[in-house]
């Protein structure tokens, strides 16, 4: 029974209630935002991003605001009248008096571990790598034909050729550094494999990423998501927001090149080989399964992007009312969820 008592100490504390309610409020906001997409047929990625940003940002401030307005929001009397009282679910005994709250704590801990391993450490390693590479400049000679092909692809694109770095790598690699000194990194393998139109479309997509740093929605979303490092809903929403970013950059690429077909073919070339996807693919054991799942989800994302490039549509500018209505519904419903 001691577990139940400890649980109560946690969930009746300010920060305990904060942690519980950020997760619940984010979950409700996430469902309502997805419903808003269906209700108003919202498809434009940058509009979807604004809605998804709401799911990450609102739970962060909703609990302190509600408590400020109604300080007694956490007491037994408010809970009696509430729409959903989480303490009821947390008190449910599963086995030998172990409450469901234990499962909730395990989920929060796992989310925190995933955040550190998949989102925090890679940034740290990337920064360390950047510092190292800056200290040891590698000056590799580039094949003239490769450089010429790249120059040709860059014609008409708003990007300085000197800011494109060619990596001596036979794999397909293309990424951008969107920092203060933006750069695009492209592998020789990719330049050789792609024709000029594909290359131009792929580079235009990266230019999109660089242009988007002026509207750093992802950076703010990442900061807010990092503050809720334990929140699995914020983790999922942040990833969906990042996926929308790819689609926004696809739109920019199409606007810059005017060739949706070329972009769609270029994305197609990044899809993993069929033998890397599905059960039994690649290495055996847990790492093999994890790798297969990763390839599968990566492939699903690329497929989704290809489909969307083919049927690109715009919602117009009527998203203000849907946004306000969804925001109001989230704020009102979450107030009664404790």
């Amino acid at each position, binding site marked *: 029974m001691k577990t139940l008592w400890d649980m*109560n100490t946690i969930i009746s504390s300010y920060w305990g209630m904060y942690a519980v309610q950020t997760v619940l409020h984010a979950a409700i906001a996430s469902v309502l935002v997805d*419903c808003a997409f269906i209700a*108003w047929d919202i498809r434009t990625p940058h509009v979807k991003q604004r809605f998804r940003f709401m799911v990450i940002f609102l739970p962060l401030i909703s609990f302190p605001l509600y408590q400020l307005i109604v300080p007694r929001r956490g*007491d037994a009397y408010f809970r*009696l009248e509430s*729409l959903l009282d989480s303490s009821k679910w947390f*008190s449910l005994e599963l086995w030998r008096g172990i409450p469901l709250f234990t499962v909730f704590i395990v989920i929060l801990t796992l989310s925190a571990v995933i955040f550190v391993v998949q989102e925090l450490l890679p940034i740290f390693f990337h920064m360390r790598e950047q510092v190292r590479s800056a200290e040891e400049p590698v000056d590799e000679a580039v094949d003239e034909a490769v450089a010429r092909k790249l120059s040709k692809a860059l014609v008409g694109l708003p990007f300085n050729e000197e800011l494109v770095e060619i990596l001596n790598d036979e794999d397909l690699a293309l990424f951008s550094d969107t920092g203060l000194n933006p750069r695009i990194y492209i592998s020789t393998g990719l330049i050789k494999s792609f024709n000029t139109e594909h290359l131009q479309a792929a580079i235009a997509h990266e230019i999109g990423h660089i242009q988007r740093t002026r509207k750093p929605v992802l950076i703010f979303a990442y900061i807010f998501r990092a503050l809720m490092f334990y929140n699995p809903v914020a983790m999922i929403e942040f990833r969906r927001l990042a996926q929308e970013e790819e689609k926004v950059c696809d739109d920019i690429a199409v606007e810059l090149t005017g060739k949706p077909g070329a972009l769609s073919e270029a994305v197609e070339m990044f899809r993993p080989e069929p033998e890397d996807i599905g059960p039994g693919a690649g290495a055996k054991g847990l790492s093999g399964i994890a790798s297969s799942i990763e390839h599968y989800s990566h492939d699903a994302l690329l497929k989704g992007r290809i489909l969307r490039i083919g049927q690109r549509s715009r919602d117009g500018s009527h998203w203000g009312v*849907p946004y306000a209505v*969804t925001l109001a*519904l989230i704020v009102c419903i979450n107030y009664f969820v404790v």
Partner: protein
Amino acid sequence: MRGLLLMLAIAFLAVAFLAAANWLPSLMQQGFARQYDSIEEAKRSLGLDTVLVPGYFPEGITWPPSFILAQKKPYKAVVMEFKEARAMDAALIVIQSSWQGSDAQLQRIRMSEVKEETQYRLKGKKVLLQVGTCENRMPCSRMTWREDNGFHYTVLLTSSPFELIRIAESMIR
């Protein structure tokens, strides 16, 4: 307009779903906080052995309680509120709880300022008496102690401590 109506319908469904989710734990297990009509009903329903009730009431405050809240999960607790004859708000609150930190959650009226505090023995029990003002700026006093059965008791009265001591005295075994 179609989108707005659809979204409102979805919101209505979401509210219905949350209400159902709030009700579901009570179907699966017993003992969650709810209002009871009588102390006997609360005792019977939650299987509580002992519920201490005051044997003395100041003038104007009468038995039975105007509000009873009881629960077994996440900890055992019984809250009784008594009103003064012509008043709307509770004047006396009696809390019996197995968790010491429950006061903040269970007191409908809270002490906002403690002006005096003293610890002494009442009928052999170590009690803490606090005198101050409540959130409604009314003078109020509170007494807390722990019984041998492990329960923590809090009695709050929106009045001077003299009557409170007599109420507590009538409860302590």
